[in-house]
């Protein structure tokens, strides 16, 4: 019999809250954290102010090697482990799959670098750990006692959704019974802001910060950097049922591809992105008409949103599912956007709620079912899309089996 994979624990650290209930309430009350960057008042950001990894993971000395993104990884992973309530033996056998970003905080790490001279007296002996992509995985495994198969994916903004997809496949194909999967990231540092501003992908945040993130609006002009992390326990269905675990949803399909077109821009026709959508639908055994909600990548950049809107139009034709755009609420969490957006989608699924796309005054594309006003709505199958720098594409489909 085909093995099925369900989500049985969620650890989330987002600007909308740390539990599904908090997230729902903050969506309903429009409590967002958008503000002007302290480094550049032309840039809007969505920070998690007051975040301290200690509040989630306690005291641990390896904290010194974690960049801010890795701290969100560790904090949300430990939350997911705590909430999973599984035995030590199961933890030891669990897999660990995560998406992480690069540490772009060069200026923060080396504030007085001159002529390439970085050798300062106070430079940590193992300073390189703050820049290695698998440092978060190492710390999570040490703290939680996880010893199973592990992968750290660094496929830009597609990374954490792919990490979840890879973990799903490992369980589905019988290599492991359970795995923690997710990611954490932060690109709000001075160097990060500089990097994305020079690449001309940030929105003009000179106006009101809460108006800056405008996915699919005609006036959109870039994304708003955010930060956070989310991890999930993925578990084989029978394994979960045997121990009476709470089930938040079933992962039933995953697709990924690479454009092979441009270093930063999406392939404008979305040919390969569409391939990842079709692959996920095929694995799930679903037709486009079975999807009733799409959680779009919706960055608010000109190129992504027009490619994505066309793609949705092609795949679903006249029967466009409801389209939400989580980045209009929390900004763009880079490598961790997929994981945090999944947590928010699971909150929406649990409470049968669709948040509006914020700041969508004039849709860039007619005929698509963008959610313009919040509404109660039962999510049957939700399809999540993430498309990243480098032409990375990923799609995950979640089935609502909470009521089964």
């Amino acid at each position, binding site marked *: 019999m085909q093995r099925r994979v369900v989500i049985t624990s969620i650890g989330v650290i987002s600007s909308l809250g740390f539990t599904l209930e908090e997230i729902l309430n903050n969506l309903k009350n429009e409590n967002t954290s958008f503000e002007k960057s302290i480094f550049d008042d032309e840039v809007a950001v969505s920070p998690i102010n007051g975040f301290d990894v200690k509040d989630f993971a306690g*005291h*641990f*000395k390896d904290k010194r090697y974690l960049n801010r993104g890795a701290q969100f990884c560790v904090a949300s992973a430990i939350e997911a482990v705590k909430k999973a309530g599984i035995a030590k033996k199961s933890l030891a056998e669990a897999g660990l799959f995560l998406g992480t970003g690069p540490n772009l905080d060069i200026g923060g790490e080396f504030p007085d670098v001159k002529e390439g001279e970085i050798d300062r*007296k*106070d*430079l*940590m*002996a*193992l300073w390189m750990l703050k820049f290695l992509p698998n440092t978060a995985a190492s710390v999570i495994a040490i703290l939680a006692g996880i010893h199973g198969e592990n992968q750290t994916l660094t496929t830009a903004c597609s990374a954490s959704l792919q990490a979840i997809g890879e973990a799903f496949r490992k369980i589905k194909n019988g290599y492991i019974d359970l795995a923690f999967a997710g990611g954490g990231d932060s690109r709000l540092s001075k160097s990060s802001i500089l990097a994305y501003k020079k690449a001309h992908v940030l929105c003009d945040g000179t106006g009101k910060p809460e108006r800056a993130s405008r996915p699919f609006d005609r006036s959109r002009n870039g994304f708003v950097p955010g930060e956070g992390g989310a991890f999930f326990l993925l578990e084989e269905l029978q394994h979960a049922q045997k121990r009476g675990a709470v089930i938040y949803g079933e992962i039933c399909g995953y697709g990924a591809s690479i454009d092979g077109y441009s270093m930063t821009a999406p392939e404008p026709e979305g040919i390969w992105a569409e391939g990842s959508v079709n692959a996920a639908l095929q694995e799930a055994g679903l037709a486009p008409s079975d999807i009733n909600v799409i959680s779009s990548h919706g960055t608010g950049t000109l190129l992504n949103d027009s490619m994505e809107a066309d793609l949705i139009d092609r795949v679903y034709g006249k029967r466009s599912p409801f389209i939400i755009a989580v980045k209009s609420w929390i900004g763009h969490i880079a490598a961790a956007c997929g994981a945090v957006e999944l947590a928010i989608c699971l909150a929406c699924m649990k409470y049968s709620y669709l948040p509006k796309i914020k700041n969508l005054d004039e849709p860039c594309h007619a005929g698509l079912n963008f959610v313009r006003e919040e509404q109660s709505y039962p999510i049957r199958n939700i399809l999540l899309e993430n498309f990243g720098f480098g032409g990375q594409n990923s799609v995950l489909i979640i089935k609502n089996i909470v009521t089964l």
Partner: protein
Amino acid sequence: MDILEEITEILAEILDIENNNISPETYLIRELGAESIDLLELAVALNSRFKIDVNDDEIFLRKLRQYVTEAEQQDKDILQYLAEKLPFLMHKRLEEIIADLEGGPTLRVKDLISYVERQRDGN
């Protein structure tokens, strides 16, 4: 701030522990659980904070057991031999260390203080 206070602060930071768990008598490895990477960071921090040269092998007594074996093989007085090799430690402390070898890693906070004092005076 005296040397003990500064070292205490550094250790608390590196090991993410409370200051009040640390006294001159505290064992770094046996009690505080310091691992080799922690000692690496400690050497960097001491070098930076006190502006002294830090030899990892000396300050962390890395070759202590090797010296004891060498002294035995060469039929030398162990105390005398250690005093030559680890000149920053007083005789009284070396006697204590020799008596304590069975118990595991002997490095204590007060050894770091002795090392820092000697390096500072030497400079």
